[in-house]
């Protein structure tokens, strides 16, 4: 898996921090639903919709359930935008 560019990760971190209502400094590309308390199933849906809005992509429901870390979302966004 290729690493996503830093600016994309930074944008995702800011986006996730807004959606979860936490400071961006608390998140990194390693953050996942395992490590972030505010990342529950409800805020996950909010994050997925926010990613769709911010990056103009469409994430299928089957894929949504897998995108539970910043790094995974970044890679998915890269692929969706390329596709």
């Amino acid at each position, binding site marked *: 898996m290729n690493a996503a560019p830093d600016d994309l990760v930074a944008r995702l971190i*800011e*986006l996730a921090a*807004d*959606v*979860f*209502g*936490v400071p961006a400094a608390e998140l990194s590309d390693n953050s996942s639903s395992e490590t972030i308390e505010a990342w529950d199933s*409800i805020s996950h*849906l*909010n994050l997925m*919709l*926010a990613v*769709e*809005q*911010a990056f103009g992509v469409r994430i*299928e*429901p089957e894929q*949504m359930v897998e995108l539970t870390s910043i790094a995974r979302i970044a890679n998915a966004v890269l692929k969706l935008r390329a596709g």
Partner: protein
Amino acid sequence: MQTFEELRPLIAQAAADGHAGLARGLAARLWHSTPTLAAAGFLAKTLPGSPAAATWPRRRVFVLRSFTVEPIIPALVAEGLAAGVVFDVTVGDFNAYSQELLDPGSRLYTADPDVAILAVQTRDIAPELWAGTAASPAAYAAAVDRVTAEVTTLVEAFRGRSVRPLVLHGLDLPVHATDGIGDHQRAAGQINAVREINRRLVELAAGKPEVYVLDYDRLVARHGSERWYDERLWASARLPLNALLMPALAAEWARFLFATGPALAKVLVCDLDNTLWGGVIGEDGLEGIVLGDNEETCPYLRTQRAILNLYDRGIVLAICSKNNPDDALQALERHERMLLRPHHFAAMRMNWSDKPANLAEIAAEISVGRDALVFLDDNPVEREHVMQHAPEVRVLDLPDDVQRFADVVRRFPLFERLRLTAEDRERGAMYAQQRCRDELQRSAASVEDYYRSLQMRMQARSVVAETVARASQLTQKTNQFNMTTRRYTEAEIAAFAASDSHRVWTVQVADRFGDNGIVGLLIVEAGPEEWRIDTFLMSCRVIGRTVETAMLAWLAAQARATGAARLVGEFIPTKKNAPAADTFSGHGFVSAGESGDGTRWVFELHRGTMQFPEWIELLESEALPA
């Protein structure tokens, strides 16, 4: 237009600095230009706990729902923040609205929110009507009866357990009827079945205090049902609507949340040049300003019509314009196409002074707080200046495109009113009468002469069904002459009136210039010995005319007639009720120390009498003569 990334640090700074005006104005700018989940999340995490929002009004909201609403909640919170209001939202359990409404011990009742929303949709509550699987006219009729009965039970359960307002979703029409294009012409078809439920829900709401129906189908239609629904999110997350339209539903909820509870904005203050007409009257002259042939083609006339509609709704109008007053008045009085005329405005500031200073004067002249003002001006520099230097005043964020001004005025959510009382309809005319009174006062030799020449008449009546709404409205809106500032819903007023312990009287005042309508309210816990005055308030409309003396003297006479020994008053100071602070001491009440947040005052009825003002005629009959 500023982007999210440009606005982000500005909003964060205003929030941290405690600058309420900038924080609210910039939040509105962000939210109205970028209504995304990220922007909503940013506002929701940055503003509610910040110093800027420390004094913003708060509303606790409980959303009962049959579908996933969680992604809509940040948008709802953002919608509130953009208007300078903090919504504290609790969401009921998924599809558990029936249990929550029926169980007296549920979270809904323990949370006791300021207002509850029941968000249901046709596909959940009437699946056979949504899918068109009811196979016969009889089956449709049965579905209509079942749904109506179900909702009636829920609403009655809520009304029996809570006095809070309830906002009930109406049902949405299926996008495609099973019987195709002719379905709506069949009385017992699918479309008319849903319409019949909606008709009955409105009827149900009309018969209950403070139950309101949100016309969900019209909301969907406004945005287009083809765009509204999102089957992908419905299938995977039980979120029925397109994420892009979640802010539209949030905005509609917010309108109801603003409109239930104390009025948050009461006055629209308008600029003139390039706002109410095109061009500059001082330069272009009466013939030169742009005010086209008709409302279809002239955006300025459309803006004026939107403002006139607000006037008819009881919103007070004022002018704040940099102009020579003679020029501006000439346009308002003499331009043949002008819809708004001088008599529509309760206060006018047409001068070259700073607008924030003018706004402060306007608030004082109309006797409202500055936070009740909304500022309409095409000039972004003036808007920014007001945001900076009159932080309590809400500023409408007008676009550059004048074609959209009327829309911005019509959409402004804080001018929504769910109930219009007779007083609301007449408010504009009352301000015009007030200007006549002010002139009389200036010409009178003494203040007593002025009182006498007013020829005032007063009548106190026990509250009745027709006056409950106005009584509740007075408790919600009256801030200045209000001893205890207790806010009561219509249901609470009705409960007082029905109780053995309490009495509720509305007080109506008229004079030679016209009828002021119901301007006073007394709620008294009438014990055998002691009459405790729970609420004693008077609209600012009649302040300074000895009506409070008349009300107290009348109340003392009532109490004495039942054999009570004393009146007990209470004064709870707030930021706004200083004008009422000396009322009890000024009428012979004796201080009886602290009580809770305020002070207690006692008037021993056997010790003295309270003189009813000789210049007010007390009417005993049921109706005030016109």
